[in-house]
């Protein structure tokens, strides 16, 4: 069964249709990326899955459950968590409070403590700074808070919306280091990214969108042999 499935989805904002009859089937056990030019509907795809964008037609399912136009909370309950562009930590809250709200739907204290331990194990600096306001941390540390917060509900799949957008080059390295670590731990992900070369280094499966339609999908290695796609969407010819 697909982890996330979009079936002939039309979606958009107001009267502006962005996704056109889009069909994607995200399988478990791999890191996926969605690439494409600006305005191709990458972010809208993630937002449609999360319930942030109105789906006009078609169906979205998570592990077979219909979540078309569901409230974002219902999507989170099904194990789909999105890390928004820029991380968007809550600056006035402490690091620990940011992590706590990541697991907003978790009430079991033991489970919460275990999740804190797992996040602190992955990002030890967050434990050192757990009582500090997130807004006072460096950009890199704020990204760690954002990743940690997204991991707190122990999602089945993590949706990363352009995690390196607007970051300084050294922070971009930090972000992809975190993505690599999550991949090593077997975390399923869908990554939307403008930095195509970097994301193709970590992704195992690629979807290429253009004007809200799927133009290509396949294993990352196979994509490298698709000269036309590589030239049109990645801006380079393999070999």
């Amino acid at each position, binding site marked *: 069964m697909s982890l996330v499935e979009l079936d002939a989805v039309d979606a958009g904002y107001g009267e502006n249709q962005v996704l056109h009859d889009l069909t994607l089937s995200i399988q478990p056990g791999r890191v996926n990326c969605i690439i494409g030019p600006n305005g191709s509907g990458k972010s809208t795809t993630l937002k449609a899955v*999360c319930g*942030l964008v109105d789906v006009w037609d078609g169906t979205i399912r998570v592990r077979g459950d219909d979540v078309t136009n569901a*409230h*974002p*909370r219902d999507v*989170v*309950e099904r194990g789909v*968590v*999105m890390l*928004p562009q820029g991380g*968007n930590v*809550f*600056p*006035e*809250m402490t690091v620990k*409070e940011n992590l*706590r*709200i*990541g697991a*907003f*739907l978790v*009430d079991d204290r033991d489970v919460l403590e275990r999740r804190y331990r797992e996040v602190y194990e992955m990002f030890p600096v967050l434990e050192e700074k757990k009582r500090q306001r997130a807004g006072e941390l460096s950009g890199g540390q704020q990204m760690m808070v954002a990743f940690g*917060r997204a991991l707190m*509900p122990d999602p089945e799949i993590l949706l990363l919306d352009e995690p390196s957008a607007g970051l300084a080059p050294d922070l971009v390295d930090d972000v992809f280091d975190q993505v690599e670590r999550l991949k090593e731990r077997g975390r399923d992900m869908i990554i939307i990214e403008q930095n195509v070369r970097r994301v193709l280094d970590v992704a195992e499966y690629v979807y290429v969108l253009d004007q809200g339609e799927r133009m290509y999908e396949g294993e990352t290695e196979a994509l490298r042999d698709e000269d036309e796609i590589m030239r049109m969407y990645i801006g380079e010819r393999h070999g």
Partner: protein
Amino acid sequence: MVSLGLLAQQIVNGLFFGGQLALIAIGLTLIWGVARVLNFSHGAMFMVGGYVGFFALGFTGSVAAAILASIVVVFALGWVTEFALLEPMRDREEFDIASMVVTLGLAIFLENAILVGVGSRRRAFPALTEEVWRVAGLTISVQRFVIFLISVFALAALFLVISRTKLGLAIRAVSQDDQTALLMGVRPRRVYAITLGCSAALAGLAGVLLAPLFTVYPSVGWYPFLLAFVVVMVGGLGSVRGTLIAAMGLAIVRSVSTIWVAAESAMVLLFAIMIAVLLINPDGIGGWIDG
């Protein structure tokens, strides 16, 4: 020459008044901070709290029941206001302005509904107690002291909820970034409704607590609303800590100034302070203390 005793008396009076003022103003600043609503019906909710308390007291004979009834009914009024009037407009542009107009309309509606329903006659709310204490040369009205204590207790409870509970965490998250909070599983619209309910409940509580001092009549809410508005502007719209400091500070200034001028004229001083603070820092005291 002003005696130290008189000065101390006015400072104590101001302190007690500050507690009452904070009770009204904190609700006003809270709902702006969380939901970006400058609630012009806050004074009307104060008025409704007074009427509910008045009738509940007449019906049950219990002050505690009157207070509880005011809190519950005005909380519900705030909740309904969010769902029926504000939520349908929330996704529109210029929501800040639209919500001001709608809540002003609600204030006028509630005032006139009461006027038509129960008349314009002032309703005397019996004093909790006429007792006074004399402590170190100061005269302390037990009624004002009790009102002050209840105000402090209510605000402490609110702060505890906001700082220590999951609901408070959701309120703070929504106030900072409602879209990201949504992605965490928080329901911002429910948070707005609860916050407006709590904000209104504080106004309702103030309405019933201050009813023995203000009496109860349809337009009773405008003066406390005006005072709370000045406090919130000085404290910083959305800043709970700034509002608390401003409430206590302005109340003491107002009280002490009445040594020299009439209470009505003291309002001029408060407005002058508000203008001066806003000229120096448009974010008010909150702009300095909240960073």
